[in-house]
């Protein structure tokens, strides 16, 4: 079947996944496979005084044990891939050398014939520690007497970053209202359902090292692995098999990837490491963790004049690969939101603490920015006693199709913010709700509605711009379209999906463009030996950038095919049209050649235009001129139980504009899942450390991943404002839900409680917090009959 862009094509990935035939990294089995287990620090900050692996290596079945000293010549420091000016770069050894800096820091590894023996043997490694003072909070870590993590980073400051746009002083002179608020954007644990894992296999003959890793970035990992270990990049093959979710947490080079690879090379046998869930909570990056002091200024008529903030962003014990990007570019530059705010300021401190490193987690900076903007707009509206929708509408940037620059210096591509607001309101009946809310309150039921109007930055790409902002690698995407002699097509994409359905949406684009049956198109990804180059999947870039690369390749293939068709039909190129998969001579419909026919001719090469090379394939690198800027309006309705403080999300409406839509079914799935994660942050999820640096929420029993009963069904809508930044007119769509949801839900909770004077509640809005507010309000709480 030939499909079109915009069809809800059912996924090509599904048949293998619903029958148990997917191959995730833990399903990879090789002859002679060894199992690796990691000895991790139980202390958040300590000197290592002695490591003794002798008891472990004496256990039958144990093959070897290694410490940093044993592998020193092959284990370089883990690199940082995005460096803002002045970033401190202390060493990040894959295995701790003399100091551990967070609970879970890797100290030694044990390798055995059997998984259970490896785990047992790791318990037998003796490590003597001398404990050091610990700091876990970003503000505390900046105090002069705080424990210092790295000599290179005084006051634990990893980086300082600032943006100031517009004239704050002038705006302040005009302002009639100032609202200040401390806002905590709590630490989250990503919780991809599949933990991380690596299988490494070294071939001493070819000197090729193959790494199967549950990663979002096979090509970047190949490059970084080579940089850290000195093993030639050309002799590293990285395969990302089925990846069981990631949400940003598999977007880095991790210690275990390096260690497992080097140990396999050292032993000359394949080695597998599979992360346990409690291990995952300690060893895989966390997200968010901002303490922010924000200020919004404006006029009583609802005009917002300025927004500024100081952020203490916790980066954990070491800088993870993209850590400096998240609380700076992806946060500070996004603080205009959808509004004509005259002056914007942001000062960010990235701060080392004795905790698991923090990096991108779905949305990555943009949820923090949107939460800040949309919470502050609500606080402002509440202060001037105006309707939150009216205040948003009054300040909204008007529709634009040729760019709009905001004071932080970034240029939005296209937007129609009132369009998504209006559409969401159409689906909601705002006036009716307010009536119902008042009536409910008289009955002792607390209802609240929250709005979140967001704009986000997606499709991380323009390499030159990104480099000027600190990117250490190009952010283009690469693609090859190979037409086989018999007319079937293989699409090789450098994007690396982990649930996004690229095999379907990329095949859909190729089917529509080439006019051929989607069953004749195969999309391959996630293997550096198959796809020459690629950047990966993160930041909602795959369709916006990877789809752009695919479009370029398809155009090149079609242009060559057309040349061959024209030559063989004895007419000029301009006389040939491509219609429904056939090359047709203009005005003579009976003279035509099919796409498969041309494919055969391209390889048979018996009659090609003079000088043309045989074959029919094209490779492209697409590096767009700008990011894309999706936007939308989400509405949450909550009911609060005033006896228990329990918050129930009873309605969720999401209207998004992601430009042209490739596959509406897949898009809806992205928004559902994204919103669930944002709602999870708003109501339940939080990673908690004790003062001595133990992760209290250290297992799935203690960390609240939303379940089916927590969530409602979602009501979705969309408007379409195409971007001009890529050939598909499509914007990124993977993170909108997460970015939009948290402020919508928290605004709804505050709305439900504003009659008792509540103006802000930090996330997660747990029943305990709400009950305490209700209790403190005493008589303000409506009495039950």
């Amino acid at each position, binding site marked *: 079947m030939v499909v079109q862009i915009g069809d809800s094509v*059912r*996924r090509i*990935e*599904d*048949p293998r*996944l*619903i*029958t*148990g*035939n*997917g*191959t*995730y990294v*833990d*399903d990879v*089995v090789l002859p002679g496979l060894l199992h690796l287990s990691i000895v991790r620090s139980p202390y958040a900050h300590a000197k290592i005084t002695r490591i003794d692996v002798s008891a472990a290596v004496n256990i039958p079945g144990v093959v070897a044990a290694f410490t940093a000293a044993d592998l020193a010549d092959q284990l370089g420091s883990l690199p940082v891939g995005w460096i803002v000016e002045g970033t401190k770069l202390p060493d990040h050894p894959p295995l701790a050398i003399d100091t551990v800096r967070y609970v879970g820091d890797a100290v030694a590894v044990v390798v055995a014939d059997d*998984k*259970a023996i490896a785990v047992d043997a790791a318990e037998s490694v003796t490590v003597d520690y001398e404990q050091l003072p610990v700091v876990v909070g970003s503000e505390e870590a900046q105090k002069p007497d705080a424990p210092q993590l790295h000599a290179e980073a005084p006051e634990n400051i990893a980086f300082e970053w600032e943006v100031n746009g517009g004239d704050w002083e002038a705006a302040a002179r005009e302002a009639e209202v100032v609202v200040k608020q401390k806002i905590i954007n709590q630490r989250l644990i990503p*919780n*991809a*359902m*599949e*933990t991380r894992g690596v299988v490494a296999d070294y071939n001493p003959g070819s000197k090729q090292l193959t790494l199967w890793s549950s990663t979002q970035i096979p090509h970047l990992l190949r490059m970084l692995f080579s940089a850290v270990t000195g093993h030639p990049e050309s002799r590293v093959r990285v395969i990302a098999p*089925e*990846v*069981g*979710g990631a*949400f940003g947490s598999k977007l880095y080079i991790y210690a275990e990837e390096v260690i497992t690879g080097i140990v396999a090379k050292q032993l000359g046998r394949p080695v597998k490491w599979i992360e*346990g*869930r*409690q291990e995952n909570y300690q060893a895989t990056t966390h997200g968010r963790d901002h303490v922010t002091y924000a200020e919004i200024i404006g006029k009583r008529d609802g005009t917002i004049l300025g927004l500024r903030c100081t952020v203490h962003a916790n980066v954990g014990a070491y800088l993870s690969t993209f850590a400096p990007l998240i609380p700076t570019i992806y946060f500070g530059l996004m603080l205009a939101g959808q509004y004509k705010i005259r002056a914007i300021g942001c000062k960010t401190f990235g701060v080392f603490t004795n905790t698991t490193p923090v990096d991108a987690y779905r949305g990555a900076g943009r949820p923090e920015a949107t939460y800040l903007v949309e919470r502050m707009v609500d606080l402002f509206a509440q202060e001037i006693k105006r309707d939150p929708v009216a205040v948003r509408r009054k300040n909204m940037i008007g529709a634009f199709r040729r760019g709009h620059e905001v004071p932080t210096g970034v240029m939005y591509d296209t937007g129609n913010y009132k369009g998504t607001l209006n559409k969401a309101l159409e689906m909601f009946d705002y006036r009716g709700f307010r009536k119902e809310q008042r009536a409910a309150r008289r009955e002792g039921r607390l209802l609240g509605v929250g709005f979140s109007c967001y704009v986000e930055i997606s499709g991380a790409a323009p390499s030159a711009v990104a480099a000027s902002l600190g990117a250490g690698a190009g952010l283009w995407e690469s693609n090859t379209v190979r037409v086989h002699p018999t007319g079937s097509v293989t699409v090789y994409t450098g994007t690396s999906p*982990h*649930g*996004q*359905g690229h095999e379907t949406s990329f095949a859909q684009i190729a089917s529509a463009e080439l006019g051929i049956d989607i069953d004749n198109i195969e999309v391959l990804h996630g293997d550096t030996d198959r796809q020459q180059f690629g950047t990966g999947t993160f930041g909602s870039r795959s369709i916006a950038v990877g789809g752009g690369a695919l479009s370029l390749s398809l155009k090149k293939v079609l242009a060559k095919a057309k040349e061959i068709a024209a030559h063989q039909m004895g007419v000029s190129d301009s006389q040939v049209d491509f219609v429904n998969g056939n090359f047709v001579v203009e005005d003579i419909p009976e003279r035509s050649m099919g796409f498969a026919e041309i494919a055969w001719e391209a390889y048979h090469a018996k009659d090609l235009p003079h000088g043309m090379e045989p074959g029919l394939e094209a490779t492209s690198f697409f590096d767009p001129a700008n990011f894309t800027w999706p936007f939308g309006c989400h509405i949450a309705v909550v009911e609060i139980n005033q006896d228990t403080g329990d918050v129930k999300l009873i309605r969720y409406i999401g209207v998004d504009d992601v430009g042209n839509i490739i596959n509406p*079914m*897949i898009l*809806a*799935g992205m928004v*559902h*899942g*994204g*919103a*669930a*994660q944002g709602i999870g942050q708003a109501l339940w999820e939080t990673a908690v450390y004790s003062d001595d640096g133990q992760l209290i929420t250290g*297992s*799935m*029993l203690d960390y609240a*991943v*939303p*379940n*089916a*009963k927590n*969530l409602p*069904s*979602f009501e979705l809508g969309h408007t379409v404002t195409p971007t001009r930044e890529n050939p598909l007119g499509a914007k990124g769509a993977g993170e909108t*839900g997460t970015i939009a949801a948290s402020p919508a839900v928290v605004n709804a909770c505050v709305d439900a409680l504003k009659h008792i004077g509540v103006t802000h509640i930090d996330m997660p809005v747990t029943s305990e917090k709400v009950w305490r507010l209700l209790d403190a309000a005493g008589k303000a709480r409506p009495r039950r009959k």
Partner: protein
Amino acid sequence: MSYEITVSVNGTEYTDSVEPRLLLADYLRDTLGLTGTHIGCDTTSCGACTILLDGSSVKSCTLFAVQANGHSVTTVEGLAKDGELHPVQAAFHEEHGLQCGFCTPGMMISIAQLLDRNPNPTEAEIREGILGNLCRCTGYHNIVKAAQTAAQTAAGGS
């Protein structure tokens, strides 16, 4: 020390010598090579390893292989019959009930059992019925739809 166990898995009898501490999930995956059953946590929280033991859904990470001795197990690999997808599998495809696919086998097994016990569940009953299975990708919306569609298919097909 090893014990000999005989387990019927997806209709085939297997006899193996296993360590007493071997988890049923590891037995299915590593000994029998049935890797469709996934392991997503270590606290019986996520449900990715859910299988049917004598027709009842259980988390196979919470049983030892020896406890399955003499019993009958169905895994995701045994859901389809004679090349025909189980209605729950077909519905997951039709309703886009999966993204990364990692929780999917356990989720489908739970829903298959739910529909077995309650052929016409309400949305609330479906959500209650899959409380033991976590999904991080879908927000459960399309999983619930898939369960509803599977219920309709099963009703129409009988």
